[in-house]
């Protein structure tokens, strides 16, 4: 085997290893093709092109409505844990900003604290609204008789899942609150020298958060489309 061929196969194998769960099958398909391409250079070109699959981060696709309950369960459980964890953060941050407001020695510092408190108020309001939406009764029902409820009515479960996925899109509100906190903190600490490294680190953090949110949104939209297709299939099957 030539060096070029070995390189091509090595790239293909790594693409399979690093591909997201939803793209694994495609990455394997690409790998098999690289193996059968006769020309070494063409195989290398093919393998390099296959790295494009790595940019697509997606979960495994839903193939039937029967898979929806498990996915719903996972999402609801995740939302509960995530919601509980992040509820404390804005409260604590808000209290800190309130404290700093009284000790700040400049107008700019106080303005920063006001922005910070505002971010916390928005975050807490948003989170409480979300919790209210998924009312206590529904949460109890989901926890106690969850399996009976969703396994007996797959269509209802699919609609519920869709609603949950749509509500995840509102996460940008939380991100804007995060921006308020950062801005508030920077304004409060305006006398403190912030070095270039910190700025670069902060910018990178924002970019990573934005990318993660975009990816999450894309995957949710994709999942919603999958559910719509499954529901349409079910409806079409019932009509026949």
């Amino acid at each position, binding site marked *: 085997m030539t060096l070029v061929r070995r390189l091509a196969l090595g790239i293909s194998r790594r693409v399979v290893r690093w591909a997201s769960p939803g*793209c694994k*099958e*495609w990455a*394997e*398909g*690409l790998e*098999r*093709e690289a*193996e*059968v*391409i006769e020309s070494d250079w063409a195989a290398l*070109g*093919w*393998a*390099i*092109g*296959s*790295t*494009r*699959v790595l940019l*697509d981060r997606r979960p495994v*696709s839903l193939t039937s409505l029967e898979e929806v309950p498990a996915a719903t369960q996972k999402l609801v459980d995740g939302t509960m844990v995530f919601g509980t964890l992040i509820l404390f953060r804005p409260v604590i941050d808000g209290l800190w900003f309130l404290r700093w407001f009284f000790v700040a020695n400049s107008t700019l510092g106080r303005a920063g604290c006001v922005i910070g408190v505002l971010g916390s108020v928005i975050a807490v309001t948003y989170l409480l609204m979300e919790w209210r939406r998924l009312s206590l009764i529904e949460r109890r029902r989901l926890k106690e008789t969850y399996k009976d409820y969703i396994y007996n009515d797959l269509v209802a479960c699919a609609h519920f899942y869709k609603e949950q996925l749509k509500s995840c899109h509102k996460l940008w509100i939380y991100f804007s609150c995060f921006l308020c906190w950062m801005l508030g903190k920077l304004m409060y600490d305006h006398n403190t020298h912030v070095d270039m490294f910190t700025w670069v680190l902060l910018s990178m953090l924002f970019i990573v958060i934005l990318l993660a949110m975009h990816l999450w949104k894309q995957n949710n939209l*994709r999942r919603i*489309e*999958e559910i719509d*297709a499954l529901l349409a*299939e079910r409806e079409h099957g019932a009509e026949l």
Partner: protein
Amino acid sequence: MRRSPQTALVLAEFLSDEQEWRYGYDISRNTGLKSGTLYPILMRLAEHRMLKTSWETAETGRPPRHMYKLTKDGLCYAREVVSEPATEAVGEPAFDGTAFSGVGL
């Protein structure tokens, strides 16, 4: 779904033999698309349930290959997309005088 010229190329390729399962590399050769362009299109088609995928039954000593074929919905969509440029080319002129026929001009 986005109707790019590359997607139209891939769909036209599938239409050349609707019943046959295709290999990725064959589609790539026939359409001139690189793997990095072709596979996202195939993935999008599969995501919209327009493309079926299958693994070739393994022969001894040879790993199975991934194969693709349009579904019924995919075939309808492909015909629609492929016929589109032709329709545009034979389209009516922008102004043929009939638009104002009812306004007394």
